């Protein structure tokens, strides 16, 4: 008995130039906001961008983008993600709506494989993936199934977040996975501690994002998000950019 889905995943992603997983060992550091702002920022610069919410049990990018309840992917030789705010947007919420999705590890893996196997992304410059917190099934499955993936790590200035991030970095290094760099989110002071620690780990410190109360007010409005500290900082960071930059 062979699961035929994994054989087609590489081909499904073949026309995507770069695949960036926005990740953090710790929850609550702002991964979804950073992932969404990164995707929107790249799209605004003229790149073709997809955003894939892989936080199946706690999705939030649809709320950040203000995705309408009635929006559904088109069925055409698979599933074609609808365009939201200029992004090709895919999420499990199309199929669960407001219901909770109580999934165990094996179920998470199956959802990931199913969506990777049937989603027709087409040609993209970037696919930005909003990862669930931690270094569990989603990270391990992506490393196994998407050979070209690169990780972008988000932390806060808190030692609690960064200590967990260090474990994630150790795992990714052990697995020889490329790490684009580290973003320090929700910064409230001038401390350079995270920057020093990041450099000590041999990673690129991409920059910091000041805590901004306006971020909460931008929820549901992609244009407003780009006008917050997150959107502005990401626009300035030495991140992967499209050819048009």
């Amino acid at each position, binding site marked *: 008995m062979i699961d*035929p*889905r994994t*054989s*087609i995943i590489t081909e499904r992603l073949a026309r995507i130039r770069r695949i960036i997983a926005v990740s953090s060992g710790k929850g609550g550091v702002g991964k979804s906001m950073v992932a969404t702002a990164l995707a929107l920022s790249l799209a605004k610069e003229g790149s073709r961008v997809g955003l894939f919410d892989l936080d199946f049990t706690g999705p939030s990018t649809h709320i950040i983008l203000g995705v309408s309840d009635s929006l559904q992917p088109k069925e055409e030789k698979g599933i074609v993600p609808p365009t939201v705010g200029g992004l090709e947007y895919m999420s499990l919420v199309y*199929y669960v709506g407001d219901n909770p999705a109580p999934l*165990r590890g094996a*179920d998470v893996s*199956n959802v990931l494989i199913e*969506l990777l*196997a049937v989603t027709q992304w087409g040609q993209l410059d970037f696919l930005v993936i909003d990862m669930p917190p931690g270094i569990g099934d989603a990270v391990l499955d992506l490393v196994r199934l998407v050979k070209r993936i690169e990780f972008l790590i988000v932390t806060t200035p808190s030692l609690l977040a960064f200590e967990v991030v260090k474990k994630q970095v150790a795992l990714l290094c052990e697995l020889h996975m490329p790490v684009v760099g580290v973003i320090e989110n929700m910064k409230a002071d001038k401390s350079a501690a995270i920057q020093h620690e990041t450099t000590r780990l041999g990673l690129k410190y991409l920059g910091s994002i000041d805590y901004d109360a306006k971020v909460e007010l931008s929820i549901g409005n992609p244009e407003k998000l780009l006008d917050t500290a997150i959107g502005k900082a990401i626009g300035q960071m030495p991140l992967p950019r499209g050819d048009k930059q």
Partner: protein
Amino acid sequence: MHEWALAEGILASARKIAEQEHLISVSEVTIRVGALQQVEPPILRFALKQLSEDGLFSHAKFRILKAKSTLKCRVCGTTWNYNSKKIDRATAEAIHFVPEVAHSYIKCPKCGSPDFEIASGRGVWLEDIKGVKNE
């Protein structure tokens, strides 16, 4: 047609196996479809035929067998079979695209828990492949 994407996966897997087994022509591919995903065999067969008009699979017969889907509650141990006729069309369609979303809609008939295992009959599997070997 979502089945098209599944058919592409089936043929990609079958091609890998055929290469490993040094088959120069495939005569039969056996596929099993689980009740939970409700893949329609005629639609899947149509996609498989369309995708394999030339080459390795051009003479292949596609046998599509159905399997019951058994769900097992992790809380009370109750085992039951999934029946798409007992749920509304929109829910059945969501489960068709991603079978695991069953956890968002279906509960154990005895204790009401959504914590159940999809013990069998989830989606689509490649069960067997037969063909002519390159001697």
